[in-house]
């Protein structure tokens, strides 16, 4: 009764060998600091202290909106003129700020010292500061360092840098222990629970998540670890896990009925799950997802879509919209293209799609205007200006903050794209 698509032949399929348009110029993207806005919700016992400028504080405030007022677990240690006078002084100042912060917030178990452009340009050694402060605060507080600077990271890469910084702290999986499945990438709790239920129903019982909901409850890792990436922007984290012996399971990312099935199938294959059992486990969710997608199909089928680079979610989302809703991707821009992790996505994009990496925003906007897409996915700095030129847009940041993975979010994900088109059609002003 259930027909799963045969595993796509990756070589020479779709856009696998398509040339990539690489551009450099003005990039209209967030820096990695923005990742803090969702990461701190996932790890309620962690605090994120950015060491940066007033600009960094202003960015977090602008991105976090109203959350700023609810005793958030992030802040900025703003570098001032006198800190720039000499490095020794800056280190002492940082220690003072951290001590004051931890005295105020005794419930914090992990403190992330997050590097920014200014702290990196003045070469303030936050790794050493983390080490120095760890001596004073362990075991109560673990102090970890990563960079969320714009010169190093784009938007979601902040999560990658954060998770990669946690990998050295993961305990060693004992030798000879049973094969373990690790799901990597911060997901909304409800989505994580759905995926864990499916994996366990398949018969995989030794399963853990990174990040864990408690920052100190890190899962073990070792040569018997098999990991699935839930998010496409985790290149460094994957490398760090592989350095500890873990093995990556290649798969499409879990968006839509097909993507989620493919993702789960990668785990099933690695753990020797019987095909009939696998199908029976995924069938109900898969069918629900397909039914939910039907609501948006009429509005989206045959429509063209243009992705500007933002989060690295662009390729998997374009694949989902093309394969499951019949949309036609014109150009799919990504801030960074990891060919290996994107193999399954590239293979399923239609031949002729422009794949671009990096950005020269003015030239890219010229291409948007020339190709007149039905919907353009872009950041909030561009959305209203494009709307006023007559383009229908979907602002990209919502795709990072909303639950969109897995079977039961497939309909919501399609709706995120269908809604701007429906609104364009209903308005009479």
């Amino acid at each position, binding site marked *: 009764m259930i027909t799963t698509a045969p595993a796509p032949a990756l070589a020479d399929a779709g856009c696998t060998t398509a040339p990539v348009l690489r551009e450099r110029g003005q990039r209209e993207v967030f820096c990695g600091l923005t990742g803090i806005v969702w990461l701190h919700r996932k790890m309620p016992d962690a605090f994120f202290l950015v060491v940066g400028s*007033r600009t960094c*504080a202003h960015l977090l405030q602008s991105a976090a909106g109203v959350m700023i007022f609810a005793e958030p677990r992030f802040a*900025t240690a703003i570098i001032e003129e006198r800190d720039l006078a000499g490095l020794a002084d800056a280190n002492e100042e940082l220690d003072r700020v951290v001590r004051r912060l931890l005295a105020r917030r005794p419930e914090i178990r992990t403190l992330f010292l997050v590097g920014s452009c200014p702290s990196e340009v003045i070469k303030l050694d936050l790794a050493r500061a983390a080490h120095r402060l760890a001596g004073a605060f362990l075991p109560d507080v673990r102090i970890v360092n990563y960079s969320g600077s714009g010169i190093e990271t784009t938007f979601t890469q902040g999560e990658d840098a954060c998770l990669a910084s946690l990998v050295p702290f993961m305990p060693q999986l004992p030798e000879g222990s049973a094969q373990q499945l690790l799901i990597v990438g911060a997901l909304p709790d409800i989505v994580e629970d759905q995926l864990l239920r499916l994996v366990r129903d398949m018969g995989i019982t030794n399963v853990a998540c990174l990040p864990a909901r408690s920052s100190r409850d890190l899962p073990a890792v070792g040569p018997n670890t098999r990991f699935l990436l839930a998010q496409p922007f985790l290149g460094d984290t994957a490398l760090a896990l592989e350095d500890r012996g873990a093995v990556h399971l290649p798969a499409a990312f879990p968006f839509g009925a097909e993507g989620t099935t493919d993702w789960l199938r990668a785990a099933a294959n690695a753990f020797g799950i019987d095909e009939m059992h696998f199908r029976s486990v995924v069938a109900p969710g898969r069918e629900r997802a397909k039914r939910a997608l039907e609501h948006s199909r009429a509005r989206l089928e045959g429509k063209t879509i243009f992705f500007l680079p933002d989060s690295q979610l662009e390729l998997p989302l374009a694949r989902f919209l093309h394969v499951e809703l019949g949309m036609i991707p014109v150009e799919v821009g990504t801030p960074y293209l990891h060919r290996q992790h994107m193999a399954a996505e590239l293979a399923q994009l239609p031949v002729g799609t422009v794949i671009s990496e990096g950005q020269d925003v*003015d030239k890219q906007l010229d291409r948007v205007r020339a190709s007149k897409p039905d919907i353009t996915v872009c950041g*909030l*700095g561009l959305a209203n200006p494009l709307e006023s030129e007559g383009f229908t847009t979907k602002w990209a940041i919502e795709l990072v903050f909303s639950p969109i993975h897995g079977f039961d979010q497939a309909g919501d994900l399609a709706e995120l794209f269908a809604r701007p088109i429906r609104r364009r059609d209903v308005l009479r002003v």
Partner: protein
Amino acid sequence: MQLSVWTYEGPPHVGAMRVATGMTDVHYLLHAPQGDTYADLLFTMIERRGKRPPVTYTTFQARDLGTDTAELFQTAARDAVARYNPAALLVGSSCTAELIQDDPAGMAQAMRLPIPVIPLELPSYSRKENWGASETFYQIVRTLAVGDSSRPASRQAGSPRPKANLLGPSALGFRHRDDIVEIAKILAALGIEINVTAPMGASAADIARIADADFNIVMYPEIADTAARWLEKSFKQPFTKTIPIGHGATLDFIREVAGLAGVDAAPALDLAEARMPWWSRSVDSTYLTGKRVFIFGDATHAIAAARVARDELGFVVCGLGCYNREFARDIRAAAAEHGVEPLITDDHLEVEDAIAAAHPELVLGTQMERHIAKRLSVPCAVISAPVHVQDFPARHSPQMGFEGANVLFDSWVHPLVMGLEEHLLTMFRDDPEFHDGAGASHLAHGTTTNPPRTGEGDHPQDGGGEAGLRFPDDIAPERSPSVSADALPPPRTGEDLGDVAVLDVAARWTTEAEIELKKIPFFVRGKARRNTEAYAAERGLASITIDTLYEAKAHYAR
């Protein structure tokens, strides 16, 4: 280093963006790392502009650091000039570029671009947004203004009417759009022509003829003061000192402007739309008398609001402060006049402490004070930037002029319980429509959709939906836990409030006194409790009885 969660002002280059975005044909080349484009969305989302701000970012990355960034800068400059064809180019650094050794001014000047290049020195580690806007506007005026500085500006031949410039309105300014309309109305009534409005809506050519005006109207000193002083020195243009926010200030402003222009003030003094004075004298406003109001914002709006509060609404100013140190002296003078301690700080926790200690009945402030007031269950209205998207309204909503005074009356009085309603709440407090949990009908977070609030320890639910950005439920703002009436803890921890609110409460409430206290309307109950406890503590009373409660009430009566 300064530990900061919330900042009242952005970095100075955001101020420069506000000036550039306000103008029509100026482009800003900002040497900045990837990510600083976040500031674009302040303009496209909060102010809802349909155009991208005229800013090109060089977007350097780690791999570019070294000699490469200079080339990146020059390429970006060439591309920006070719694509946008601006009449003038602003060049400057963001905070990170300030730390690397490139010299945007030198690099741009070496390129011999066919347009004026205006270099901006904006020290990001010591200055902030308003200073950046002010400095940028000053540099633009200084570079582009043309005129004979040796003689006073004289009325143009062939133009019988006096001319004035409107200085200060910018992009992302609180109600700047509508204030311009109100000032224009006044000038029209006085027969004064507007020469240039800048930076908002001005082109480089407009700035070039700024010296043609007879005098300047400084609408927002935070942005226009430096430029106005330079224009006074260079072209002998006097400028106005009165900020026309409030009815009385508007009258003073009209007289000042008429004096500078040498025209009769009368035609503008009696505009029919001035409803505020009568509204304030009408009997329903009697209950406003002596309401304690705490005022915080930028210095200009805060000082103007204090005058309106005292002279035109009959409030008592119980706190006055600003976050922009550049105008600290003005705030100190105004605070002395109102007999309060000036509060000059950019630390919102200090503001919160001061508000909690002052026990105001109304807070006038920025978006931040709105949230503080919500936590403390005190009514609040917004009078100053920074503000969220809802304070860039579609409707006409000025702060200046006579219509501005009307707007102030409505927006400050609405959050208060109206006179009749207050009376009814007291009379019928045990009726189902008027129980404590019902709150005032216009306090959105105090409506019956929330669990009834039965004690002053309760926190109002921190509503979402006010963010510049929207978030789905799973990452919605953390909500304060509802506290049961039995627990009645103090609203904030001692540490949060500072020492001011931590009273040594030796005296215990008797059951009867506690019951009596609960009969007092919830919006003044907190103050009654604190006053009574302070009264008991001062006198070393071991227990608080009904008598103590009323003794204290008599003691603190005003």
